[in-house]
C-alpha cells in the first residue's frame, strides 16, 4: 500500500493503520485485532456466498423448462440442499454480525477491541472447520435433506452425507455462540465513558440483541443436530416413530432455533439501515427509543413463534392458535421500525448515494416479505400455501431481499472506513438498482406460482407454471450479474480507488472520528461521548423550532 502523503492533506493519517500493521500470512492468521478478524470473515463468507450462488444457478437453469433438462432429481435435491445449508449457516447468519459487527461494534462504542480477542479469532477457526465439513460433504456427493434435516427422512431414509453436513452446522454453531458471548460482554463492559445504553447507535443495539438470540437459540440447534447424528450413526431411536420416538419433536427443537435465526439475519440488517437512512437524509432518526424497544421486542418474541412452521405437522390446534397469534404480534415491532425509517425520511434532504439505495431497497423488500409473512401466520392461508413457492418467495424476500440488501448497504457505507479507499459511485448506484430489479423479477413471480399451487423442492412442474419460472430464472441471471458487479468495482477500488477521508459521508457515529482505515488500537485517545447518535444538524429549520431542545434532553441522559 502506498503511503505517500502530500503536505497539506491533513485528513489522511500518517501513522500505520491496521492493514499496514503486518502483511505476512502469519500476521493475519494469528491476529487478535477485531478489524482483521472481520476481514478474515469477509473473505470466507464471500467464498461461501458464491458457492451457494453457483448451486442455485444450476437449480434455476433446471427450472427453465417444465420437465427438466440437465439434472437428475437426485442431483437437483443435493444442489438446493447445499444452497440452503451454505447460504443460511455459512453466509446469512455470520454475514453482518461477524464482518461488520466485528469491525464496527468496538469502534462505535469507543472500545479498543472486543472483550475476548483470542476467543474472537478462535470462532473464525471454528467457522473454517465447519466450512471444511460442508465442502467435504459436497465433494463426497452432497446431501439431499434440504437445509432443515427433517426427520425421519434425514435419520432413516436419506442415502447421502447427512452426518458431515450436520457436523458442519454443529461446528459453525459454536462459532456463533462464541461470537455472541464476545459481543454481549463487549457491549456491557467496554463502552467509552459517556456511552450510555440510550446513546448506543442502533447498529450496536441490533448486534447486541442478535448476540442474545445467538447465545440462547444456537445450543438448541446443536442438540437437535446431535440427536440426528446419534440416531443416524449409533441407531438411537429418538425420532424414529416405529421405535417409540417422536419425529415432531425434531421440528420443535429445530424451529426453536431456526425461527429466531431469521432474526439473527434480519436484526443486524435493521441496524445497518438505521445507520444509513439518517446519514443520507440528514435527519435525526425518528423515534430512537421506540426503535430500541422494537429491537428488544423482536428478539424476545422471536423465541415464541416457531410453531407457525408446524401448522401442518399435526401439532395441537390450540398450540397452532397461540403460535399464530404470536406470529401476528411480532409484526408490530417490525412495523414500528418501518414507520420510523419512513418518518426519518420525511422532510429530509435525501441524497441517493449507493448505501442509501440499498437501504431504501431493504425497506421495500423487507416490507413485502413481512406482509407476506402475515399470510403465513394465518393458519388457513398457511395451510393453503405450505410447501409452495409462496413460502420460498416470502423467506427470500426477508433473508435475501432484506439481509443481503443491507449487507451490500453496509459494505458500501463502511467500505471507505474499512479499506481507506473510495469506490466508483455511479457503478455502485447502477449495481444497487440492478440488484433491486433483479431481485423482484426473481422472487415476485414465485408468490404467484406458489399461490397457484407450485410446490417447492420439485425439479419438474406442470407447464402452466413455466411463465413464472422463466421470469424467475431470467431475474436470477440479472441478480447474479448485480452480485458480481460489486466484486469487480470494489476490487478495482482497492487497487486504484481514491484515498478516503476519515468521514466521507459527514456521518455522526464514533467510528467516523478515527482515521480511515483505523489504527490498530482504533482511537488515538479515549473518546468521550456527550450526546446520542444521529445528531444531524442539516435538518430544515421549518420542521419545527423545538429540535435542539429535544437533542439537549437526550444528551442529559
Amino acid at each position, binding site marked *: 500500500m502506498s503511503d505517500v502523503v502530500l503536505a497539506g492533506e491533513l485528513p489522511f493519517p500518517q501513522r500505520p493503520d491496521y492493514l499496514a500493521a503486518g502483511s505476512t500470512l502469519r500476521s493475519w492468521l494469528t491476529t*487478535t485485532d477485531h478489524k482483521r478478524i472481520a476481514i478474515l470473515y469477509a473473505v470466507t463468507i464471500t467464498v461461501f456466498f458464491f458457492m451457494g450462488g453457483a448451486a442455485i444457478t444450476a437449480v434455476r437453469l433446471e427450472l427453465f423448462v417444465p420437465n427438466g433438462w440437465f439434472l437428475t432429481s437426485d442431483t437437483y435435491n443435493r444442489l438446493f440442499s447445499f444452497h440452503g445449508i451454505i447460504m443460511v449457516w455459512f453466509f446469512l447468519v455470520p454475514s453482518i454480525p461477524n464482518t461488520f459487527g466485528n469491525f464496527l461494534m468496538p469502534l462505535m462504542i469507543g*472500545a*479498543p*477491541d*472486543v*472483550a*475476548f*480477542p483470542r476467543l474472537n479469532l478462535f470462532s473464525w477457526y471454528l467457522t473454517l472447520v465447519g466450512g471444511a465439513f460442508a465442502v467435504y460433504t459436497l465433494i463426497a456427493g452432497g446431501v439431499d435433506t434440504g437445509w432443515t434435516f427433517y426427520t425421519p427422512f434425514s435419520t432413516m431414509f436419506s442415502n447421502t452425507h447427512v452426518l458431515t453436513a450436520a457436523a458442519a452446522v454443529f461446528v459453525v454453531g459454536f462459532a456463533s*455462540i462464541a461470537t*455472541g*458471548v*464476545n459481543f*454481549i*460482554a463487549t457491549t*456491557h*463492559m*467496554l463502552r467509552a465513558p459517556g456511552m450510555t445504553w440510550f446513546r448506543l447507535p442502533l447498529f450496536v443495539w441490533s448486534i447486541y440483541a442478535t448476540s442474545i438470540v445467538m*447465545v*440462547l*437459540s*444456537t*445450543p*438448541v440447534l*446443536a*442438540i*437437535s443436530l*446431535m*440427536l440426528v447424528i*446419534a*440416531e443416524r450413526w*449409533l*441407531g*438411537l*431411536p*429418538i425420532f424414529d416413530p416405529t*421405535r*417409540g*420416538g*417422536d419425529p415432531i*419433536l425434531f421440528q420443535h*427443537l429445530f424451529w*426453536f432455533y431456526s425461527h429466531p435465526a431469521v432474526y439473527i439475519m434480519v436484526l443486524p440488517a435493521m441496524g445497518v439501515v438505521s445507520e444509513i437512512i439518517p446519514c443520507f437524509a440528514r435527519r435525526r432518526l425518528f423515534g430512537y427509543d421506540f426503535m430500541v424497544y422494537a429491537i428488544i421486542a423482536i428478539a424476545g418474541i422471536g423465541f415464541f413463534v416457531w410453531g407457525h412452521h408446524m401448522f401442518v405437522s399435526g401439532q395441537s390446534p390450540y398450540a397452532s392458535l397461540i403460535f399464530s397469534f404470536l406470529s401476528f404480534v411480532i409484526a408490530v415491532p417490525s412495523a414500528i421500525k418501518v414507520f420510523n425509517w419512513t418518518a426519518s425520511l420525511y422532510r429530509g434532504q435525501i441524497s441517493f448515494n449507493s448505501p442509501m439505495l440499498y437501504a431504501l431497497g431493504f425497506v421495500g423488500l423487507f416490507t413485502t416479505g413481512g406482509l407476506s409473512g402475515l399470510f403465513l401466520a394465518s393458519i388457513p392461508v398457511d395451510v393453503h400455501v405450505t410447501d409452495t413457492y409462496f413460502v420460498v418467495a416470502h423467506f427470500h424476500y426477508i433473508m435475501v431481499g432484506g439481509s443481503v440488501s443491507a449487507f451490500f448497504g453496509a459494505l458500501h457505507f463502511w467500505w471507505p472506513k474499512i479499506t481507506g479507499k473510495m469506490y466508483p459511485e455511479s457503478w455502485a448506484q447502477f449495481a444497487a438498482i440492478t440488484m433491486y430489479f433483479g431481485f423482484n423479477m426473481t422472487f415476485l413471480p414465485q408468490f404467484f406460482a406458489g399461490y397457484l399451487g407450485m410446490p417447492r423442492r420439485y425439479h419438474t412442474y406442470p407447464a402452466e407454471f413455466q411463465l413464472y419460472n422463466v421470469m424467475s430464472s431470467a431475474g436470477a441471471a440479472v441478480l447474479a450479474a448485480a452480485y458480481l458487479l460489486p466484486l469487480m468495482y470494489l476490487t478495482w477500488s482497492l487497487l486504484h480507488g481514491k484515498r478516503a477521508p476519515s468521514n466521507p459521508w459527514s456521518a455522526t457515529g464514533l467510528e467516523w472520528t478515527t482515521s480511515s482505515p483505523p489504527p490498530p*488500537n482504533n482511537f488515538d485517545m479515549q473518546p468521550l461521548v456527550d450526546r446520542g447518535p444521529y445528531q444531524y444538524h442539516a435538518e430544515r429549520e421549518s420542521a419545527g423550532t423545538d429540535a435542539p431542545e429535544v437533542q439537549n434532553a437526550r444528551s442529559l441522559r
Partner: protein
Amino acid sequence: MTDATALLREPWEHFERQQRAGKFGIWVFLASETLFFGALMLTYAVCRVEHPEAFAAAGRATNIWFGTINTAILLTSSLTMAVASQAAAQSERSRTLVLTCLGLTAALGLAFIVVKGFEYKEDIDKQLIPGAGFALSQAAAQLFYGLYWLVTGVHAIHLTIGIVLVVRLIVLGATRRIRLRENPEIEVTALYWHLVDIVWIFLYPLIYLPGRAS
C-alpha cells in the same frame, strides 16, 4: 508483582474491569450451556411423558450404586473447587492451599470418569445399548437408554474439558508461569465446574430414580 498489572491483558486498561468482564462472559456462556442441556432434558421429558412405564422399567435397570457414588464424588469436587477459587481470590491465603484444592478437584473429576467407565462397561455387558439384542423387552426402554448414553456422554465430555482446564491451572501455577493469587481464570474455571456438577444434580434423579420410588 505487587499489583495486578501482571495479569492485565489486551484490550483492558483496568484489572478490575477485566476481571468483571471475564466473570460476565462465563455467565453468558453458562446461560447458553443451560439451553444446551435444557433441550436434552426437554427431549427426555417428552419421551418420558409419552412412555412412563417403559421409562420406569428402564430406570430400574440402571445401577444406582455407581450413580450415587458419582454424585458424592462430584459434589465433593464442587467443594474443593470452591475452596480453591475463594483461596485464590484472597491475597493472604497461601498458594499451596490453592494448588492442593485444584489438585483434589482434578483427582475427584478423574475419579468420576473412572467410575463412569466401570458403569459403562457393566451397561455394555448387560446389553443396554439400543439396537438389536437390547436387554429390556419394552420398546420405549430403548429411548431411555438412547438418551442415557447421550446425556451422560455429553456430561462426561464437559467434565473432561473441566479437568483439562483445572490441570492447566495447576501446571501453569506450579511452574509459576501464571500467578494464582487474584487470578480471575480460577473463578471462571470454577464457575464452569459448578455448571458441570449442577447438570449432574439434575441427571442423577432423571436417570437413576425413575421406577424406584414406588
